[in-house]
């Protein structure tokens, strides 16, 4: 019976995804060349895609394993530069001719996978010594790691300006092989969505597997977990690497979205929404222990960030209010404070959104709500 239900769940999700995907493709074909769709909606979806993968991958370490890592953007930077330089090398070697070449797709997939693998490799190097530490100490070491990565990339001669030793070492890589322009972004939107869905599915499967149960046990009580025969350090390092793999893939998507790379975008002091602390904020906002929550929070944070800078309604606000919006960091903080005040578990808590369980979940929630109300009234009556 249980097995049947899981299979039905997979079937339902696949069906809905395929349906949405087809509908979206039709929409893209119909409106692809229009200004607002091409220039606003599609780039926004691309950015949401990498933020979702990034937040969900950090949730694995932070929410499910309970280890605070502040260097997640370091892995993303590794992924971004790997994918960018690899594709640039292929372009320079003329392995593919333009973005319509079928061989470009192969290069794209290889670059994305290589980005993930290299990030995972680096996470092993950091994770094996660092994960013996706990709490604050792990946070400090991963924070340091993020900064070290940025400085290393900054000083690699083949990462600057034109890339691959043609330019000098510099904070910006001006062009990469898989950087998409506006038209190419529409054309390859399916790729971003497919990578995101696949990544989230793989993260889900990990959480639901015996590995997922093991790391949840480690989060709840490490001593008890190790007493029950769980090899805690092995599971911790494995999860850390698995999480970094997807951070690397998020980096590759970032490299596709932005034709240029700049290490300052991944730096800890970056004032935008792409820094390691901010990814932690996304995870906390969405709910530690809910992958769907992270995905939703990533989209919300993106919208907040985008709207306060580009939204037209900002100029309609009274001067005193729009004055706050000149300092975007303040607004992010306000959003976080509102959520923490009224919903300390985060938006989703540990609840996972599921199509199959949606109706029963709603029914249960109403039932629970009624029961709580009745109890309160009873308590009042008793008093």
């Amino acid at each position, binding site marked *: 019976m249980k097995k049947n239900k899981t299979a039905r769940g997979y079937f339902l999700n696949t069906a809905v995804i395929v349906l949405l995907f087809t509908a979206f493709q039709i929409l893209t074909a119909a409106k692809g060349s229009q200004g607002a769709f091409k220039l606003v909606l599609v780039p926004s979806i691309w*950015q949401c895609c990498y933020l979702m993968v990034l937040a969900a991958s950090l949730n694995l370490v932070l929410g499910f394993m309970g280890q605070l890592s502040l260097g997640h953007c370091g892995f993303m930077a590794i992924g971004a530069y790997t994918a960018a330089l690899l594709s640039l090398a292929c372009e320079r070697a003329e392995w593919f001719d333009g973005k319509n070449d079928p061989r470009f797709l192969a290069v794209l997939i290889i670059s994305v996978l290589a980005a993930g693998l290299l990030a995972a490799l680096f996470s092993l190097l950091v994770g094996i010594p660092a994960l013996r530490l706990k709490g604050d100490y792990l946070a400090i070491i991963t924070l340091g790691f993020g900064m070290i990565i940025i400085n290393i990339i*900054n000083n690699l001669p083949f990462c600057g*300006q034109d890339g691959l030793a043609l330019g000098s070492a510099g904070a910006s890589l001006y062009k990469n092989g898989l950087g998409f322009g506006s038209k190419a972004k529409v054309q390859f939107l399916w790729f971003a969505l497919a990578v995101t869905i696949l990544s989230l599915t793989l993260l889900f499967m990990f959480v639901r597997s015996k590995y997922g149960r093991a790391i949840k046990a480690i989060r709840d009580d490490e001593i008890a977990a190790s007493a029950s025969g769980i090899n805690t350090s092995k599971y911790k390092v494995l999860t850390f690497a698995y999480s970094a793999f997807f951070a690397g893939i998020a980096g590759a998507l970032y490299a596709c979205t932005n*034709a240029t790379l700049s290490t300052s*975008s991944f730096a800890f002091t970056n*004032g935008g929404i792409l820094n390691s602390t901010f990814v932690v904020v996304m995870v906390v906002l969405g709910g530690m222990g809910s992958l769907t929550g992270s995905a939703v929070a990533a989209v919300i944070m993106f919208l907040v960030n985008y709207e306060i*800078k580009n*939204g037209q309604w900002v100029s309609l606000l009274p001067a005193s209010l729009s004055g706050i919006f000149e300092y975007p960091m303040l607004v992010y903080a306000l959003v976080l404070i*509102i959520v923490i005040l009224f919903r300390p578990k985060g938006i989703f808590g540990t609840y996972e959104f599921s199509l199959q369980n949606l109706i029963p979940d709603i029914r249960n929630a109403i039932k629970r709500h009624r029961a709580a109300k009745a109890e309160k009234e009873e308590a009042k009556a008793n008093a």
Partner: protein
Amino acid sequence: MKTSRFFSILLVLCMVFCIAAAGGSAFAADDQIIIGLISPNTGALAAYGTGIVTGADLAVEEINAAGGILGRQVQLIKTDDQSDPTECLNAFNSLVAKGVGLIIGSATSGCTSAITDAANEEEVCILSPTATADSITTEDDFIFRACYADSFQGAIAAAYAKQAGFDKVGVVYCAADVYSKGLFDSFSKACAEYGIELAAEQSSASLDVQDYTNQFTAMVNAGVEFVYAPYYYDVIGPYVVPQARAAGYSGIIMGADGYDTTPDYVVAGADLTAFNDVYWTNHYDPSDTSEKVSSFVQAYEAKYGSIPSAFGATGYDCVYMYKQAIEAAGSEDSVAVRDALADRSAVYECVTGTFSLDESGTPLKGAAIISFQSDGSTVTSKLVDVVTQLP
């Protein structure tokens, strides 16, 4: 509690719906010429953004008061890129989606390079006030600028060293930054040309390092009396210059346009005589007595109460360059304006000099060499020389 949650949800919904609305509607009146402006108004380089915005605002105000361009009023749409390439691309896309075809921006080379490809694809003109990296503008594209390129700026510093009689110089720079490294490259290349020996060369890990003592101790040990240190104002004022003097270095420190606005960032109460013998190259000199510059400086001071930085001047110039190009093209269509800007015979009479653009879209103009002077309590700038051509 209930109502608060309701409001939170409402707020989120508002934002969700606004993204759809943001792209859809064109909101400016039909008879206005719209120019987009992308600059780092917040974040680490906010002083640059402020300069460009105030300068461009002033120019638009003047043009509108004088009857506009082709008899039509000009409207400026300002966006913020936080000196981050992703935000810059977002700002660019939102401007283009609103139908803007002429854009001024962005301040730094890193951000501007993020939008050059997109601008060529969308056929939108980009006129950068201060992106100096050589590779920003290329032939036959939609990208132009109102400032000289790094390869010229570094060479001017070398020429000045030669002229002042130094045959042995040192460099403190950041190998990891495109601005600093680009200037170092052009400076060292010019030094080799002029027969100047590069006796000491020190690099810092990043542009925002706060300790330069070791680097300048090495300069003292190498016995150089002229050090080229291409950094931005945020470290020059509080760290580089005072620490160099504290390390026993008493010679000349020379920099580039990143030194602009340094006097606003010095540490109050410190011994500011350290800033004597600091020279830098800039796009223009505010104390210039020519009619063009003095009227600009006066108008700017009257409006904002401060001396305009080079960013204010180039931002101001960008608007006037667009004005001239639109008038030459007869319309504000971006392709027509591009052709007008690409016309190499057009001469622009601007605050930062009278110049025409070369085949890549970079102005052929001189640089002002400026020195800091201090009596111990304040730092002021003084024009030393204006170099229009390399020796």
